[in-house]
């Protein structure tokens, strides 16, 4: 079934009609049904790993820390659905996935799966750096549930997809990390199952190969396979998933459309950062920046925002001295420290007026949001007139905002583009 549609890089764009229609005409039955699943790990304080210790202290009761990794999770995933699970580290998402895969035993509750289940996909399981690529592909494919015969039949496809024809007899030791993940991904997508469980493997390698990976995922989606994947990457979540779930400390926080869940995730991650104490502040003569924040067009404070929704960068300054025509400015940087823009209140020769000690002012800088999905940091400052660079108050990276959305072209900005083609 895979063979027919998988003849090389380009064939992935050809939709498999029968699968698509078969998947569409079927009523959405439940592919995965999770009912009241709990999973607790017992982490002993005093680990008895030797018989001697046990023999010496037969009566000492071992005390345990109970780590309640998954708390009473109930969930139905429909057939053909692409379902994402997100959450911070230690939120229980991978544990839940491993419970579905049958790697961990659930304490209470039941999990049912309709159809064949992939034995859990993580890249390169069973890879051995001392063997050549050929052997490793076969080993990995067998680990993923293929028979030796199937693995050998698909070997050529794997090689072609990974574009590693010339390196098949090279030991993995000598592979670059990029080549390694390409090989692993190419093998992983050969898996024979209606229900796929994937942990953090979307889109690997360089930009061109990432595009191929995405096409493969769309192909799987078209074929009507049910896919559950765990990710930290909101971009792939919003791009692929039909539905998503946010977990935190073992609890289900939210189940809904990926966009909403991605926002909730960002809120969870970066929400508290927005109003953290000033990190690196220097202010002279008592003039201080009291607060900085991002707000949306309705004037509500935000910590994350969708692409293309306008936003305002704001801060509140309190004057400790009398200042004539001070310059209010904001610098917006990416979290890598690249400056996206510097906006100043004197940009168009506008007057800011004069301020007395004790006075406060709120400065707002509205911008259209053409930023690529990422995290951005705001540095507000106040400077004397004319000088510009000698700030009387400046706080580095005082507020942050998460921009999320479906488009990421790879650049810093997603400017609206007007495309015309003129045939000559």
């Amino acid at each position, binding site marked *: *079934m895979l063979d027919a549609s998988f003849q090389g890089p380009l064939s992935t764009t050809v939709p498999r009609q029968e*699968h698509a229609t*078969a*998947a569409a005409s*079927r009523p959405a*039955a*439940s592919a995965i*049904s999770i009912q009241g699943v709990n999973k607790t*790990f017992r982490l002993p304080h005093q680990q008895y*790993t*030797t*018989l*001697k210790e*046990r023999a010496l202290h037969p009566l000492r009761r071992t005390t345990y820390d109970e780590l309640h990794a998954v708390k009473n999770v109930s969930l139905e995933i429909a*057939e053909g659905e692409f379902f994402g699970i997100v959450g911070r580290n230690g939120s229980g998402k991978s544990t839940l996935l*491993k*419970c*579905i*895969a*049958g*790697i*961990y*035993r*659930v304490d209470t509750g*039941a*999990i*049912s*799966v*309709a*159809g*064949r*289940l992939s*034995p*859990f996909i*993580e890249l390169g*399981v*069973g890879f*051995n750096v*001392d*063997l050549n690529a050929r*052997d490793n592909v*076969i*080993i990995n494919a*067998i*680990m*993923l*549930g*293929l*028979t*030796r015969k199937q693995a050998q039949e698909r070997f050529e496809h794997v090689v072609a997809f990974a574009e590693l024809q010339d390196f098949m007899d090279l030991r993995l030791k000598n592979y670059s990390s990029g080549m390694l993940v390409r090989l692993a991904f190419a093998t992983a997508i050969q898996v*024979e199952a*209606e229900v796929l469980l994937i942990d953090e493997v979307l889109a690997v390698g360089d930009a061109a190969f990432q595009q191929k990976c995405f096409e493969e995922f769309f192909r799987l989606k078209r074929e*009507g396979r049910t896919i559950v994947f765990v990710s930290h990457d909101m971009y792939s979540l919003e791009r692929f998933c039909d539905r998503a779930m946010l977990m935190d400390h073992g609890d289900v926080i939210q189940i809904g459309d990926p966009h909403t869940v991605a926002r909730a995730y960002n809120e969870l991650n970066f929400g508290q950062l927005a109003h953290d104490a000033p990190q690196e502040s220097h202010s002279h003569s008592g003039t201080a920046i009291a607060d900085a924040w991002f707000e949306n067009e309705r004037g509500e404070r935000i910590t994350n925002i969708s692409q293309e929704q306008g936003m305002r960068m704001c801060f509140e300054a309190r004057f400790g001295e009398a200042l004539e025509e001070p310059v209010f400015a904001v610098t917006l940087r990416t979290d890598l420290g690249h400056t996206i823009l510097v906006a100043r209140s004197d940009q168009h020769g506008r007057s800011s007026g004069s301020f007395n000690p004790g006075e406060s002012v709120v400065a707002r800088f509205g911008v259209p949001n053409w930023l690529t999905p990422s995290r951005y940091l705001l540095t507000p400052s106040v400077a004397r007139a004319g000088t510009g660079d000698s700030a009387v108050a400046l706080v580095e990276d005082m507020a942050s905002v998460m921009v999320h959305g479906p488009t990421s072209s790879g650049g810093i900005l997603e400017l609206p583009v007007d495309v015309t083609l003129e045939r000559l």
Partner: protein
Amino acid sequence: MSAAPELGLPAPRRSTPVSHRVYAPSALGGGLHRFWSLTFMLARTEFKLRFFGSVFGYLWTLVRPLLFFGVLLLVFTQVFHVGSNKVPHYPEYLLTSIILFTYFQETTSGSVASLVGRENLLRRVRFPRLAIPMSVALFSFFNLCMNLIVVFIFILASGVKPRLSWLELIPLIALLITLSAGVGMLLSALYVRFRDIQPIWEVIAQLLWYGSPIIYTVQSVQDKHLPLTGLSFAHMLVINPIGAIVTQARKALLQPSAPSAAATLGSEVRLLIPLGIVAGVFALGLWYFNREAPLISEKL
């Protein structure tokens, strides 16, 4: 996982697949086919890796027991005079029993840390857990087969004529594999909980080596009796399944006039004791492994 087909041709997609419960990983769940292909793949990989990058490659597996054999032969024929004149075909017997014991030793010692060593697989993929210790037994079996070729060349070169009774070696090796696999399952699962299984087993294996008629024969201790019991040392040696196997192998391969395991024990019914031990160890190993299987991935 129960009876759901994991492999084979894709099921027709038009029919809605039957929903089935997902259980914790088990010793054998997921179908025998998958179990076998994993076991074979793991053993084959191990085999490839073992001699990777060495000039003589596979020959080293032969060299080790052969060198050991040479040293023992020298010591026990030239220094201690155990074999030489008294025991016919002593060198051939010594080599055969060393090779058979090597299989037991390799399988059991290799199994001990096998689960812990494969942690990355156990935590990442669902597969029948039993494939791991079984792949160790299979890997050692590859070695055994290669070693047996040398054994047979050696036996033929020493002037022993092939006989139909040589075929007895097949059930004997089957028994040896059953015993070794049983011990291997038990040890690998125990080691997950108790890390001192490794040194303990090293000592026990050493004791078994001396407690089995390998460098000596059952006849050499026939007339020595244990106090209080009516048992001779020879009885004890053949109650030990390894002793029974090598004693029987000696009769079948080398010397039809040598005492069989049954004769050493006194009656054929008593053969049930070593056979029972083999069956019991295997059953115990399988039971314990099966009991621990669902939790192995958490307890590592």
